[in-house]
């Protein structure tokens, strides 16, 4: 176990008596997976672990724990979610204790699998700049830079933007050089008709589990989501790409100007559909139009909740 993790455990142990629960990570059924850990006792704390394989955005649980004293282990990206939730009054700052850690990048296991040609993974070891992957066929070495979560390539800060406790900062990051081609890059390179066909084909395999929605820290109306509502009847229950794509449009627009690109929607998708790309596209536009990024400043108002009479970057067009 790293010095880092030990220090984190010590910090939490000191604060735990004053808290109802602390959100952290532990390993899942294999060292290649991670699962959120709800720490209420010292025994729970013994299971805490943190590394590049620990991927969930724990801030997703915060709105449902409102009213309780909650501690949360937080990386830079996660802190943007917390800030966004604070901006929207969905959580109370005084109920939350933030244990900051500096992150060196989180691994996207799907990219690892792709990098080794879809072979069945046996184990994944992370080194300084490489991942050593053992599969049924043998051992492969993959540059860490190529297999990080999409959000790592647009990382704004390794350390949380707000925190109450901070584990000694680490420097160094697995990001070295240009980001590899993303799903959005691939979509950008397509003709519109090909893009439409891409979504149709992807949505064909969507099983409508709504993991994208339920993992999204900003989808806070889960239990009364329009997806299952009959009145208004936004979505037909038919299992067609049309309805499933419509849901993705709903998700993207409902989080427009709020989404911090934490990528939980895409990570949670069991069918590997790159649903984050839509949100990235909207964010790119919002950055251009309003010079705004979600979750950076607790005091700012999300851009679609406000307007200016003169919009500097909006150019009106002709119908022709």
């Amino acid at each position, binding site marked *: 176990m790293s010095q880092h993790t030990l220090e984190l455990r010590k910090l939490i142990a000191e604060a735990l008596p004053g808290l109802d629960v602390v959100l952290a990570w532990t390993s899942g059924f294999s060292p290649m997976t991670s699962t959120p850990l709800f720490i209420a006792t010292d025994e729970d704390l013994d299971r805490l672990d943190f590394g590049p394989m620990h991927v969930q955005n724990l801030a997703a649980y915060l709105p449902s724990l409102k009213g309780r004293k909650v501690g949360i282990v937080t990386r830079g990206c996660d802190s943007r979610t917390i800030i966004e939730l604070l901006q929207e009054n969905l959580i109370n700052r005084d109920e939350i204790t933030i244990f900051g850690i500096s992150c060196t990048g989180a691994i996207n296991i799907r990219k690892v699998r792709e990098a080794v040609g879809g072979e069945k993974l046996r184990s994944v070891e992370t080194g300084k700049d490489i991942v050593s992957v053992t599969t049924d066929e043998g051992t492969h070495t993959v540059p860490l830079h190529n297999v990080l979560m999409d959000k790592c390539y647009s990382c704004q800060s390794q350390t949380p933007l707000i925190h109450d406790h901070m584990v000694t900062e680490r420097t160094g990051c697995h990001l070295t050089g240009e980001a590899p081609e993303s799903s959005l890059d691939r979509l950008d390179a397509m003709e519109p008709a090909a893009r439409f066909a891409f979504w149709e084909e992807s949505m064909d395999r969507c099983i409508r589990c709504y993991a994208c929605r339920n993992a999204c820290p900003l989808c806070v109306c889960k239990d009364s989501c329009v997806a299952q509502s009959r009145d208004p009847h936004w979505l037909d229950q038919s299992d067609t790409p049309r309805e499933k794509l419509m849901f993705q449009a*709903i998700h993207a627009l409902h989080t427009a100007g709020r989404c911090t690109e934490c990528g939980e929607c895409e990570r949670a998708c069991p069918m590997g559909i790159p649903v984050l790309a839509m949100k990235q596209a*909207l964010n790119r536009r919002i950055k251009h139009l309003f010079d705004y990024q979600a979750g950076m400043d607790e005091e700012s108002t999300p851009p679609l909740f406000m307007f200016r009479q003169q919009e500097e970057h909006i150019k009106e067009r002709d119908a*022709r």
Partner: protein
Amino acid sequence: MPVLEGKELRIVGFLCNWCSYGGADTAGVGRFAQPTDLRVIKLPCTGRVNPLFVVRAFLNGADGVLVSGCHPGDCHYTAGNFYARRRLEVLRELLDVMGIQPERFHYTWVSASEGQKWKQVVSDFTARIHELGPATSFSSCAAVAVETGMKTAI
């Protein structure tokens, strides 16, 4: 302008009640000839236009969508069109990434007195949609084939 016999495309128009619907009415009263592809849905304000209305229209088979409201500063509800402007600008990007050509979508401002402008907007936009042709629609996918039942035994 004559009706495009049998060649009309499906264009959906979301018009605010106070300005553009009035403008369309003015154009009608003035007997300005316009193409007839547009199907108008009246709303209280462009601020009521959920960008998802536009997405839904496209996914349900529209070839073009036009949103029109009061000029900025003239909104009956003071600020509805200011919010709409932001939302609809962002929407363009979503349409684009979804593979729906953003040119198929247009928003504009037409006041109740601008019958001539309304005619121009409708004519221009309809012409643009005709240049683009029918929108890409869903093909029948494997899931649909399975869902509608297994093939009839021969």
